[in-house]
């Protein structure tokens, strides 16, 4: 398979950040009260991810190893600021709905994780495709969770009433805070079943890498907290 297509496939399916790696859980829970919010958040993260992968990969030989995390953070924070202002100017309603979670893209572990594990070691073009793949994978995950929550919580899909209110009573809790935890809990349980089936078939899925796994070794912050791993156990 072409290596660029392979990066896309890897990001969207094989190592999907939401479903398989379980990364970036804060925005996943917070902004998926409707499909359109999930889509907006996913796409803004994708833009930041592509650009940060591009810049970090381009500067990978210039940035000294000792200060690479601060350097990555400055690059990502600048990009996030640009995206935040663009959204405030052209997508006001989405920007208002996502609120503080837009600047918080800076601390999203997917972005620093990809910078650390891929972009800082690979040429520019594959890094861009890695960013596109991972970003679209994250967008897909957020949109799917948003769809489920919106359908159960309001009977709508992308704001269009699909389940008639004459017979369907919206389960409002799903568009509120507890619904996010519930949907994610069932997603994790479902993925556990799929994971077991895949293992039996001999084609195991990639292990979760984020905070949900309790395993810090793949985390972008492992450089600062690797020796603190026993804390989590």
């Amino acid at each position, binding site marked *: 398979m072409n290596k660029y297509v392979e990066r896309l496939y890897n990001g969207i399916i094989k190592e999907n950040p939401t479903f398989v790696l379980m990364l970036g859980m804060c925005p996943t829970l917070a902004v998926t009260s409707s499909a359109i919010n999930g889509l907006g958040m996913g796409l803004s993260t994708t833009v930041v991810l592509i650009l940060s992968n591009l810049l970090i990969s381009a500067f990978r030989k210039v940035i000294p190893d000792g200060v690479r995390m601060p350097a990555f953070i400055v690059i990502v924070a*600048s990009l996030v600021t640009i995206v935040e*202002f663009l959204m405030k100017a052209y997508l006001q309603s989405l920007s208002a709905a996502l609120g503080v979670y837009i600047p918080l893209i800076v601390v999203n572990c997917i972005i*620093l994780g990809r910078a650390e594990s891929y972009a800082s070691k690979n040429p520019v073009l594959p890094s861009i495709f890695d960013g596109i793949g991972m970003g679209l994978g994250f967008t897909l995950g957020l949109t799917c969770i948003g769809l489920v929550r919106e359908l159960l919580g309001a009977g709508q899909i992308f704001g269009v009433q699909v389940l008639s209110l004459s017979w369907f009573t919206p389960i409002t809790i799903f568009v509120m805070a*507890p619904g996010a935890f519930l949907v994610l809990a069932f997603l*994790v349980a479902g993925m556990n079943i799929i994971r077991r089936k895949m293992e039996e078939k001999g084609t195991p899925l990639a292990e979760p890498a984020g905070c949900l796994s309790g395993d810090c070794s793949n985390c972008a912050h492992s450089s600062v907290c690797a020796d603190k791993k026993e804390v989590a*156990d």
Partner: protein
Amino acid sequence: MKELILIAVGSAIVNNVVLSQFLGICPFLGVSKKTETAAGMGGAVVFVITLSSFVTALIYKYILANTYLMSIGIDLTYLKTIVYILVIACLVQFVEMFLKKKMPPLYESLGVYLPLITTNCAVLGVALTNVTKEYGILESVVNGFATAFGFFIAIVLMAGLREKIEYNDIPKPFRGTAIVLITAALMSIAFMGFSGMI
């Protein structure tokens, strides 16, 4: 005074940082297996968020939104995300060094958790919320402390529940993170009951 109490109750209980704002989910799920470690983590978060709210509020008022600079047409407030994340990262490192040198007993109990907080979204989230809500320095510190205290309550409660969950017979796919998330959902429902308070 009344306003400060309202801010404190609002951010600690009504809009709990974990259970309704979804900030700091990582340590909430990762470091809540034992009540003791959860309390240590909660204490470190209270310490760091209160301090960082104070420092970022100072920086915002006297540097980024400096009235003199504003009057000659220089508005630096757009730099807040970049400045805050760097200041918080440095602050955590500095606090760790300071505690290690000057207050060894406190370092013993909080030190191991400090590096875990450097890039915790709750710290940056509180600093940015203080700006959006146009809080002054005192209000920012109160809001920071209350938000962090809300985190402390949530993580200690969760650790207590998880210690009991260990003994239950949970369906296989739900073992591990899934049951913790269901517990969090139930806690979140309980905390929604406070929403009528303010």
